[in-house]
């Protein structure tokens, strides 16, 4: 036992000695480039968005730097993986703020991760600026929290209206058990029921599920007019569409952005034809947006989730614009004030701005339909825009 006591004593002593020492050593650096943190889910369920977002941001930074930077200073991105999980987001956040001394964080791609780190950012006065997180709760997360992605609540209202307008009265839903997909489903159902529709079946699945036939069998047995799919990962979205067709269902399918992603359409194949989705999309008439997509394809050889790509890209430019004013990457308050005032025209839309909750205003959802297999190509991403989402 004496050896243990000695060991324990040793640790305690070392730990006590080292804490002040460590505090003394933690220095800061105000070197040449502006340092901006990036937290995206490079792995985990939100991998596709995270990867696209990181790449889009890097592309934007390279463009800015190639054009001479901001007031002559370069931008440096410090990327951390938030893995679509609150806990990992907190760790990544702490690493970014404590180790790298970052005051501006672009991210994250998952609402769960965002909600985990947001309270810390709010307390520390660090700006968190996401292009992808859609959970309605984020609106209330604080003063320093911004996003260019549309709130799920709006998406749900639009989808509910669309369903009703298309003559759907009995709806079956299946959604992934993640905050995003659940949020979409919930708001959709709420609006749909408000309009007088009836929900005849509800199923959920865990993110690592690959076999949905049981759930789908039950849903189809309830004879719905339409099926609504809300997925977090393109993979599950695509697979559900495929498997439901395999089970002999030929009615309409409605969904959101995920099941019409490139990977999802590749998995679903012809089964996805005719699938309708309410998404935010880059206006084909928006030259800036098309240019960004073109550059991205040239650089990385693929394009997926174009709107989120553009959103992540715009975030960097908006931040850069504000840094021009503040000229200090440690001045989070200045950045915040700038963001509240800014009106921006970029890849994802013209003249959008932020309201007092940090929510983006000035962007709208559209309804799209997936094309038959033979008509899909790289330029149309496999779907056509039917028009703006019906209101009311």
């Amino acid at each position, binding site marked *: 036992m004496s050896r243990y006591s000695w060991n324990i004593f040793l*640790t305690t002593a070392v730990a006590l000695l080292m804490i002040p*020492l*460590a*505090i003394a*050593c933690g220095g800061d650096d105000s070197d040449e480039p502006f340092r901006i943190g990036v937290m995206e889910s*490079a792995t985990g369920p939100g991998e596709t968005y995270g990867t696209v977002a990181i790449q889009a941001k890097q592309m934007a930074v390279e463009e800015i730097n190639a054009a001479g930077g901001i007031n002559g200073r370069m931008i440096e991105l410090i990327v951390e993986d938030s893995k679509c*999980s609150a806990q990992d987001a907190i760790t990544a956040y702490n*690493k970014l703020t404590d180790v790298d001394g970052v005051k501006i964080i672009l991210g994250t791609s998952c609402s769960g991760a965002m*909600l985990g780190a947001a309270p810390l950012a709010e307390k520390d006065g660090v700006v968190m600026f996401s292009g992808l997180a859609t959970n309605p709760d984020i609106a209330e997360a604080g003063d320093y929290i911004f996003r260019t992605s549309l709130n799920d609540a709006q998406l749900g209202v639009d989808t509910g209206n669309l369903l009703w307008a298309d003559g759907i009265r009995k709806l079956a839903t299946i959604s992934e058990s993640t905050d995003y997909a659940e949020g979409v489903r919930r708001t959709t159902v709420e609006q749909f029921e408000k309009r007088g529709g009836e929900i005849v079946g509800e199923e959920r699945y865990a993110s690592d599920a690959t076999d949905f036939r049981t759930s789908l069998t039950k849903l189809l047995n309830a004879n719905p007019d339409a099926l609504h799919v809300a997925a977090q990962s393109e993979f599950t979205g695509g697979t559900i569409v495929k498997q439901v067709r395999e089970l002999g269902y030929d009615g309409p399918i409605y969904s959101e952005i995920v099941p019409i992603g490139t990977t999802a359409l590749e998995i679903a194949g012809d089964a996805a034809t005719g699938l309708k989705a309410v998404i935010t999309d880059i206006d084909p008439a928006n030259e800036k947006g098309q240019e960004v997509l073109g550059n991205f394809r040239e650089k990385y050889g693929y394009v997926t989730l174009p709107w989120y790509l553009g959103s992540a890209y715009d975030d960097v430019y908006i931040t850069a614009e504000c840094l021009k004013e503040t000229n200090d990457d440690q001045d989070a308050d200045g950045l915040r004030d700038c963001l509240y005032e800014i009106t921006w025209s970029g890849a994802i839309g013209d003249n959008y701005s932020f309201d007092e909750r940090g929510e983006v205003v000035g962007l709208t959802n559209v309804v799209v339909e997936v094309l038959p297999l033979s008509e899909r190509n790289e330029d149309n991403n496999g779907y056509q825009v039917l028009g703006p989402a019906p209101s009311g």
Partner: protein
Amino acid sequence: MSHLAQAIRELGDSGPLRRMPRANLERIATVLVLGWAVGFMLWQGAGFTITLTTIFAIWAILAVSLNLVVGFTGLLSVGHIGFFGIGAYTMAILASDASYDRLRTESIPTPDWPFFAALPVCIAIAGLVALGVGVVFNRFRDDIFVLVSFGFAIIAFSFFLNLRELTRGAFGIHEIPRPAFGSWVLDGEIEFLIFALICLALVVLICWLIVTSSFGRVLTAIREDEEAIAVFGYRVTHFKLAVWVLSAMMAGLAGALLASWTSFIDPNSFILLESMLLIAIVILGGLATIWGSLLGAMAFVLLEEGMRFLPFLPPEFVGQARQVVLGVLLVLLMLFRPQGLVGRYKL
């Protein structure tokens, strides 16, 4: 176990069993991990060190409490994460002051209790659940116990994810408050760290008292031969149940701390894989020693955070790389040192 007896009988023919090499490995491991920790602190500075130490404190509570079950009682439980989650969720539900009514997402009742009122409830509920589970699990042993404890971890996770009326499912629960003494809220990182370390110290003290008491000795005997110790007048099931519940209560405490520290929890923190990592660090550190679990938890935390700084490793693979390292370490330990780095017991 009778394999062991068999082997020993055979060896007994030719003299006493060979002694395990008790080289200085223990001391080397200790110094290595501590040195690593110190070096890390010096290199990284205070802020991050505080975060890491807090994570360490929480995992150490888990590891020490799991060691009571695995190392001292010989029940290889992979389901400990379930109690951790129960503690965290109880704290979250009771103490969260978020009012979800104003939001459009799933809403749950939030009684908005203060931290210290919710804490005993967290511990108690983890203990109660453990009692129920333990009564059923008491009959299982060895690899079947491993299997059903896998089951418990999965069932617990499923409840966190799917019992939406209580846990908000995948949305998670946020705005979980920090501990507060009256009006003094421990919202600083250092204050919380100290609080967590005090909790850890308490848990270590309690565990130390348990394992050095008569109760602890009985546990080790149960680990070695359940039927034999029963003949000497001990109700084995009660002892097993008691240590299972105690250990679960400590895990519940760790969960409550986690919830309060991160202020947000969702089911992703309580997946099966985390539980497998947890058992890996307990075995890695050493079975049937408290110190070993502390060492294991420390190595575990340092491993992940240390690997973030490896230049050749893309950041997104740090978690996986750590898992690879832990897996390989586990294999090597089973090969050369089945009792773990500073352990006192071989499975």
